[in-house]
């Protein structure tokens, strides 16, 4: 089993890699396509996985992962459990701004299975930002793709003067309304 490490490999020139971890493969595919459609100035590769740790067979082919986005479907408790199990296999230095949680399916209020408290607990313990989105709506899907792309750009170090850590802290402080 290969561990994913933030600085374990050399970065490639003008490119970034995003890892999406989540149990809903359809949603992952949708989001990945939306991100690839966006206008960008650097090469991007998106890796999809249902859980961590990643299998070690193809480790040498994988580029350095710049941002891990854990996708939690608010309608399925299993996706939350899956994410929690995968979090244990993430190298600690990823949590310095290179991890974010993506909560999907927030449009359907009637079918919420995952409590907001559980999501906030994740946010507090792992000190990472949480993005809420509804991937079935085209507009929100595009907006989320743009946000992730921007985050990826910063986490890959393409934006001078802004580091992943400072950006992560900025995001957390701006959304921190709860006690």
């Amino acid at each position, binding site marked *: 089993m290969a*561990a994913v*490490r933030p*600085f*374990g490999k*050399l*970065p490639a020139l003008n490119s970034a890699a995003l890892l999406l971890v989540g149990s809903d493969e359809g949603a992952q595919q949708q989001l990945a396509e939306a991100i690839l459609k966006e206008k960008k100035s650097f090469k991007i590769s998106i890796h999809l996985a249902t859980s961590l740790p990643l299998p070690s067979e193809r480790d040498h082919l994988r580029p350095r992962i710049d941002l891990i986005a854990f996708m939690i479907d608010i309608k399925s408790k299993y996706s939350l459990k899956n994410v929690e199990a995968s*979090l*244990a*296999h*993430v*190298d*600690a*230095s990823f*949590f*310095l701004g290179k991890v974010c949680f993506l909560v999907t399916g927030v449009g359907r209020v009637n079918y919420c299975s995952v409590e907001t408290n559980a999501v906030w607990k994740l946010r*507090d*313990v*792992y*000190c990472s930002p949480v993005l809420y989105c509804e991937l079935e709506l085209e507009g929100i899907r595009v907006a989320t793709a743009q946000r992730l792309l921007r985050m990826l750009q910063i986490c*890959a*170090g393409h934006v*001078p003067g802004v*580091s992943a*850590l*400072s950006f992560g*802290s900025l995001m957390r402080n701006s959304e921190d309304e709860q006690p």
Partner: protein
Amino acid sequence: MFSVLFSLFPTKCQSKLTLLGTETLPESDAKLSLLMMRVKALTAEYNLWQKRSPEIISTNPDVLVALGKEELQKVKNDLEMVLSTVQSKNKKLREDLKREQQWHDEQLQIVDVLSGIEEEMKNQVVQFSEKRILVLIFTSENMWGILHFPVVLYFFLRSNSSCSVHILNLMLLVFQILINKLMSTPHEPYLTISDSFWPPYIELLLRYGIALRHPEDPNRIRLEAFHQ
């Protein structure tokens, strides 16, 4: 930041980092260890920033002015976009509020109407119970009327309480009035009747010869003088 450093010193840093290996967060107190790490990393970044000093882009004032203008233009565009987004959001919220207010008012109206209906129902229930009491009273005193004239009972129950009192009273009253008239004023035994005197009863009195019509005026009757 680190990746920028990275590209400058690939071999030295990279080999060091590769040797570090993975370390995951401990199960218990994950937050504490993570926060400690963040403190260390942030202090390192902070120190780095302290050591840097801003470099001057160029000493040429025209270049600086042009660059400044460009920056300000970008900022202006961004702010305008934000302003229009916020304005449209506000408008949508106002419309939503108005709609919800209308719905709320409608619901209040519905509540009023329903409580009105409830009041009416309550009154009907009261009326019904009043009727019951009246029936009891009248049947005990006037069993005769109800027993002999089941139609009266039917009529009584169908109409509301005040009317039925009237009817029953009139029925007996007619007889009483006739008797009184005959006894008290023998010279003037005729009673003028109207439709309020329950015509079937009058009919009955006339047919059985208990009461007689006035020979000239069909609207006047008198009691037959049985005692003479």
